[in-house]
Structures are given as C-alpha cells and as structure tokens.
C-alpha cells in the first residue's frame, strides 16, 4: 500500500450527456480530475452525480460525450481492478457470503493472491468480521467492505459515491484520513457527496453540479475566497445599520436584531457602525461557511430557512441564518 504511485490517473469527462427516456440526468458535462488530489464531486440529490460516476466506470453508456481514465474508456482498461477502485452502492454483496469470500471472488478475477483480501480487510478495520456473513453488517461496516473492495487492486484511481453515508463521526474521520493518505501517495480520488461539510476537510478541488450541468470547478480554497466571508452583527438598532449598509454591501436579516453582511470587511462594518453611532451587541466573522456557498451555488434553499431563500445565481446573497461551520 505504501508504494509510490507514479502512473497517470487523470479522469476526463467531456461533453457527457445521459438521457433516461425523456429525462436528461446529465447534460453536456465536462470536467477533469487530476492525480494526487482529492476532488469533491458535489451537488444535491438527483443532480446527476451517480449517473456521471457510472458513466466514468462503464456501467452506464453515455447518450453523448465520453468519460476516460488514463485516456481510455473504462471498458478498454487492461486491468480495470488494478487501475480503478470504485465504491458505489452501500451494499453490493451477497448477504449470505462472508466478507472475506466476497473479496476473494474479485481477487480471483483480477488475478490477485487471496491474501490481498485479508490485507484490505485489515486496512478497513474489518479483520474481526472477515468470516461473518456480509448481510449481518451494519451500514458503516458495509461501507468499509465496499471500500475494501475498491482498494483490492491497489488502484491509482478511486471513485467513491457518497462514501460517508452511514458512517458515524468517527468513521467519517477515519475515511477522511484514509483518503488524504491515499491522495498523498499520488492517487486520483473522486468522491461524491450531497453534503459539503462531509468532505470539506478532505477535498482539494471541487466539481459542483446541479441538474446534470457543471456549476463550478476549481480549488476549494478559491471557492471560499470568492464566497466565504460574512460578518454577523447583532444590534438593538439593526434596522438603522441595515439602512446605513444599503448599497455598500449585501445585507441580510436573519433576525430582527441581526444583520448579516457579505462583500464587506468585518472591520469596515464595525467602523461604519461606530461612525453612525449604532450600539452593537455582537460583531463576528463567519470565515468558512462553505455549506452556505454550496447551497447558494446549487440554487438549493438551506434547510433551516427555506422560506427566505434567494433566487439562484445571486451568489453573494447568503440565505441562511447563523453559521454552522
């Protein structure tokens, strides 16, 4: 596991369209995933993430466009299990087959020694459950078994669809560390999620999709810089402050006594309040409210304040009261 991976591992999705009947699940989607990084593939449920990943893995035939790994469609990879590891459904195993036997089947197909099954079971913390029937596994253990299967061929590309599903906080932490470790070895990791906060601490780059189309691709840090800063102010005279800020910054009113300011420095907000003689009870910076950005970019209303949602596209209008980051 600790060998350096030097092969190229670029995933290229180009003009990908997939129609199911009259429904366009993916619509002219293009993006690239680079080796050595963890890329978060983000979007709300039904955004076309799973369909895209299944096209990349050759399980679904695109209506138009291509998806390649190492410059080839999946079906043309010579040793697919040694090139790409994938985790898709939470349970793709026979419930009456033991975890170890399940993995040994795929060792056989890939021409790997049967002991490799024990190695990945160890790596995913399932050694003690290796001989138990997989049908008795908890959701978290199923995810671990799925990940074990993905790692079987020591692949340099990993494609993981919602791997954090069903994991407890400790499991999510473990998954983060594992993905980080694997990416640091030079592997390409594409990990999908509908909840940004799940992968926020893990990913280097993001590909955000909604309704089957690309919303944004780029480094996560850039996303935060462009959209991340907000200042929360509490004041008994919040109305007057909002009026004073009008035209200078984007203003929201999460509560009667609060103003949320984006597009202006926290210090500048404080200074403005001081010069206007407005009494403040709180002045704080919300630095990394990525979940908020994510909701704004994908045009989804944040769950807590669905009623106050602003139209999609007005990126600087934050829509959620109170940071939860």
């Amino acid at each position, binding site marked *: 596991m600790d060998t350096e991976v030097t092969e190229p591992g670029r995933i290229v999705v180009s003009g990908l369209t997939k129609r199911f009947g009259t429904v366009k699940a993916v619509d002219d989607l293009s993006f690239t995933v680079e080796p050595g990084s963890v890329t978060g593939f983000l979007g709300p449920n039904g955004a076309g993430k*799973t*369909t895209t990943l*299944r096209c990349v*893995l*050759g*399980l*679904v*035939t695109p209506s138009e466009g291509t998806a390649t790994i190492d410059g080839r469609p*999946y*079906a*043309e*990879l010579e040793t*697919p*299990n040694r090139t*790409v590891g*994938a985790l*898709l*459904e939470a*349970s*793709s*195993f*026979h*419930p*009456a*087959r*033991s975890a170890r*036997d*399940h993995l*040994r*089947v*795929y060792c*056989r*197909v*890939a*021409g790997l020694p049967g002991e490799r099954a024990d190695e990945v079971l160890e790596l995913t913390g399932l050694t003690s459950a290796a001989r138990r029937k997989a049908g008795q596994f908890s959701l978290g253990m199923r995810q671990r078994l799925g990940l074990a*299967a993905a790692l079987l061929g020591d692949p340099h590309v990993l494609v993981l669809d919602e791997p954090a599903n069903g994991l407890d906080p400790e499991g999510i932490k473990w998954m983060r560390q594992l993905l980080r470790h694997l990416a640091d070895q030079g592997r390409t990791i594409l990990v999908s999620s509908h909840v940004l906060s799940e992968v926020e601490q893990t990913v280097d780059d993001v590909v955000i999709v909604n309704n089957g189309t690309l919303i944004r691709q780029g480094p996560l840090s850039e996303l935060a810089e462009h959209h991340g800063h907000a200042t929360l102010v509490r004041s008994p005279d919040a109305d007057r402050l909002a009026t004073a800020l009008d035209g200078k910054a984007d203003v929201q009113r999460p509560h009667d006594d609060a103003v949320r300011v984006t597009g202006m420095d926290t210090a500048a907000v404080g200074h403005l309040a001081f010069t206007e003689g407005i009494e403040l009870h709180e002045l704080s910076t919300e630095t990394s409210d990525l979940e908020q950005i994510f909701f704004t970019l994908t045009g989804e209303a944040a769950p807590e304040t669905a009623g106050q949602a602003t139209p999609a596209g007005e990126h600087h209008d934050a829509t959620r009261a109170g940071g939860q980051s």
Partner: protein
Amino acid sequence: MIRLVQAEFDKTFSTKLWLWLLLGGIALMGTFMAFTIGFDGAEGNPSPSLSTPEGKRNLFATASAANTFALLLGIIAVTGEFRHQTVTPTFLATPHRGHVVTAKLAAYAVLGIAFGLVTIVAATAIALPWLAAIDIDLSMTSSGIPGTLAGVLAAVALYALLGVGVGALVRNQIAAVVGALVYLFVLEAFMRGLPVIRDYYPYLPGGASEALTATTDPVVEFLEPWQGGALLAIYALAFGVLGTLLSVRRDVT
C-alpha cells in the same frame, strides 16, 4: 477466462444454495423413482414394465429430476448478481460483459454435469437394492442404461446453461424463478397431457430432455436422443445469446 470461471465457482461454493438445490434434485428423483417402482405393473399403468429395457431406462431417466434444480441454479447465478447488486463489482472487474456470461455458461455446464453425476449415483444407490428386493434383474451396462445416463448428464448440464440464459434475459430473480417453475410444472405438464397439443411437446425443452434420456412413453413419441440433445443445446445457446444481447448490455444503475 479460466480466472473468470474459477471466480464463478468461488461465488457458487461460498453460499449454501447449491447444496439445497442438489438435495432438492435428489429428493425429487427419489420421489419419481419410488412411484415408478411402486406402481410397476399396477393395473391401468400404461408405462413399460421394469422387466423390459424400456422400463429400466425410464427408471434411470428419473435422475433428470436434477434438470429443474440445475435450471434454478443457473437462473439464480445470474439474477442473484442483479438482486444483490454484485453485478456492479462483477462488471467493474470484467467490463466485457459477454465474457462474464461466457464464464458463467462454462462454469454452470461443469456444475450441471456434477449435479447430474451425484443424482445418478443416488439413483443407482436407490434402484439397485430396491430392484434386487423385488427380484428384478438389473445390469447397469445393458438395456441401454449407459446411454440414458449419458443423456441425463447432458440434459442436466444443458438445463444449467438454459438457466444462465433465462437469468440473463429476465434479470428479475422472482419473475425468472416463478416463470421457470410455472413453465416446467404447469405449462409443460399440460402440454404433455393434452391430446393434439402433446404433438408439440417433444419440441419443447422438457420433451427434448426426455428424448435425450431415451424415455419411452405410451402416448408421446420423442425425437431421437441426439436430436433432443441438439434441440436442448439450441435452446440454451439462444437464451444465452439473447440474454447477453438484449439484457446484460443494459445500463447498470
């Protein structure tokens, strides 16, 4: 390809299904055999007597009771992959889906022959002492019995292949299993029993299998054994090819 076939054996023997199906086939064979011996020479039984070569061949042809269970084994081998979503890792490991079906056909031909062999051994173990007890002479190498046993092996293997083909075509496990059982035990049974319609029965898989095992029936005239074997092989291949072309290539979502 050898690795893929071995992987199919690994899959089969890592659950207990094969054992239950094998025992089911032996139990059904035993039931058929008990009826055949128990009602031998009974008044109104038109079947040939066990003292004739035809009767002895019919007795050993009961080992083709394993057909049904080999068919189910083949069906479940394919539909189980879809039911438990193991088809995802299977196709990820072998993106060329035709190779997966081919490996299953090869593996289940071998397993079908194994089912047939075990059932024949069980049939012999029941028939030899029982016939001796009722003073019927039996030589395993005469009365055309070797031919019937070879026919049983071929029929069971071809039914296993047919199962793989049916499973590839009808990916829904419950639909495929229920459909196969209704076909075998209702539709074919009716066709075999009804006048006029029964003229077509020899051309169905059940009739082809009976031809293959050189069964003699008072009212139905079967094809020659080799013709029955060829016909059954055509059914098995047709389902396998159709299943691969029409169904297995579909998106796995």
